[in-house]
């Protein structure tokens, strides 16, 4: 492995591993601005997003976004608002999504 350019930092494992926190999986069109649309909905409602992962998929026309969010009674409303976004093509609750963030945490901690 090549030497890391960064100093290790300690992610908050408690939040990341808290399986009560839902993980949302969004398939979106991949273009500048999609992230603003998605994050704007959460920010406006003061609904905290703890962690975000975004990767292009297939031919790069689409991306998948994983959001680790707080369990909140407004979550259904948030999902319905996300469904209305033109660039959000699919939303599902990801059952084993926490693993993805654990991988990211290991990377940052090393």
């Amino acid at each position, binding site marked *: 492995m090549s030497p890391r350019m960064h100093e290790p930092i300690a992610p908050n494992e408690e939040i990341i591993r808290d399986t009560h926190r839902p993980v949302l999986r969004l398939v979106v069109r991949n273009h*500048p*601005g999609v992230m*603003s*649309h998605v994050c*704007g909905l959460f920010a*406006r409602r003061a609904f905290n997003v703890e962690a975000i992962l975004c990767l292009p998929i297939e031919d790069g026309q689409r991306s998948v976004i994983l959001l680790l969010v707080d369990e909140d009674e407004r979550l*259904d*409303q948030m999902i*319905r*608002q996300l*469904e*209305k*976004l*033109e*660039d959000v093509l699919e939303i599902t609750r990801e059952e084993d999504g926490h693993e993805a963030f654990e991988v990211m945490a290991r990377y940052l901690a090393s």
Partner: protein
Amino acid sequence: MKATGAQIITKLLERHGIAMIPGIPGGANLPLYDALRASSIRHILARHEQGGGFIAQGIARSTGRTAACLATSGPGATNLLTAIADAKLDSIPIVAITGQVPRAMIGTDAFQEIDTYGLTIPITKHNYLVRSAAELLEVIPDAFRIAASGRPGPVVVDVPKDVQNEIVEFDKWPDPCPVTTPPPPDRETLLAAARLVASARKPVILIGAGAVATEAGEMIIKLADKIEAPVASTLLGLGAIPSTHPRMLGMMGMHGAPCTNIIINEADLVIALGMRFDDRATGKADSFCPNAAIIHVDLDRSELGKIKQPVVALQADLQDFLRELLSLIDKQDRPGWRERVENLRSEFPLAMPDIDDPCQPYGCIVQTANLLDEAPIVVTDVGQHQMWVAQAFPFSFPRQFLTSGGLGTMGFGLPAAIGAALANPQKTVVCFSGDGSLQMNIQEMATAAELGVNVKVILMNNAHLGLVRQQQELFYGARFHASRFEHQPDFITIARGFGWNAYNLEDSLSPLDTLARALHEPGPVLVNVPIPQTVNVLPMVPPGAPNIQMIGGNYHVTQNA
């Protein structure tokens, strides 16, 4: 085929049925204006981009069809924001096309550069920053599809100047995107709704903007008759069914008739059709229709359960829903409830004093309605006059009443009236305004004069920000501050200066005759109506209070929450 980005935009606007387009040119949209010159689209030169946006809204609100408007980059776009936000909150289909600095200069703080895309994310249904002329072939049809599909709303298309100039080759013009239609109502849910209706003893129907947008009035009346339910409306539902219909209770909520709010409070079933339980309509939401099961039908799924938890929730087009429901239910007589409703209506009506005097709020509105043989399009600004019109004007058809509901934008009235008049040249457009509101887009008087539109502005002039003054009186211990205009402009001279005819009821020996003459004169006319300066709109539910806690009038219906 070869065309510039600007030519693609104008051609596609034509193909989407845009016959006129309000806007203002500037540095970053000049290529588009150059192309527009050669197109069949009539350009309406507004005097301020916000005015242009509201002219487009007047066209869209009065016709139900998507309208478009233009602005340049920077201040052109920021000036347009209020009109776009207004369209978002009231679900009005608008496509706004803004100029942007050339691609290479984006992000450099170039002259008149602003992040229009970023600014319009939260106030649009969708927005675009177009990155090539070829993209326009998809983006423009998509913009029109999105604006009109499902629950309508505004779409912004931001187009850099060099994209407008870029030449592309393509095979054929794209067809207009078909508007997507909602899925048919779910059978099981319909049956559940029918069962709930059959078991109800005291049903009430509540209608909102969706009832106007889908023109579902006739079927709503059929349902109301079939199940003996009275109908109440939100501000934006007015006009969906005639105000004079015996089952119509008029507007509900903060300034609704006392009987309307009391009847809703007593209901054991609320059938909410195309309304979203806005706080001005419901008062304190927890205390709203406390005894009722709710059937909520809306095109937008995210509205179902947002404020009030329905027993039956259905995402559907109202016409589809009503047609199906009517076929599932039998005629249901509810003589006890009918009698109770009638008693409450006669016991707690809306008090409308001085309806014969055109220099009093209700008189001004009712006499204006009486003096016109044919029902006009009625536009308002925002404030006391707006609530008086909502309470008192006898509406008779959908899209007759154009008013800024959700955003409550002062300055909406005059430009929206111009748009309505342009789209409906055979009709008279009456714009009730206040002296506060009129000053917020008064420059559009020049636009109206230039076009000679048939707009009659009835200026209910109390030299105050009346609704602010009223709240200070009622809820801030009558500690008045900044709600009175110390300097009062001479609106008659101003109107004449813009080239309007103007009449003043203040110095008229026969105000009613003067009003009649003004209403029947062709072209734009201002009527200054000096109304008493300290009259309140009553009743009034204090903001955040339950709807049955109403201040004012001859009655005091109060109850602790």
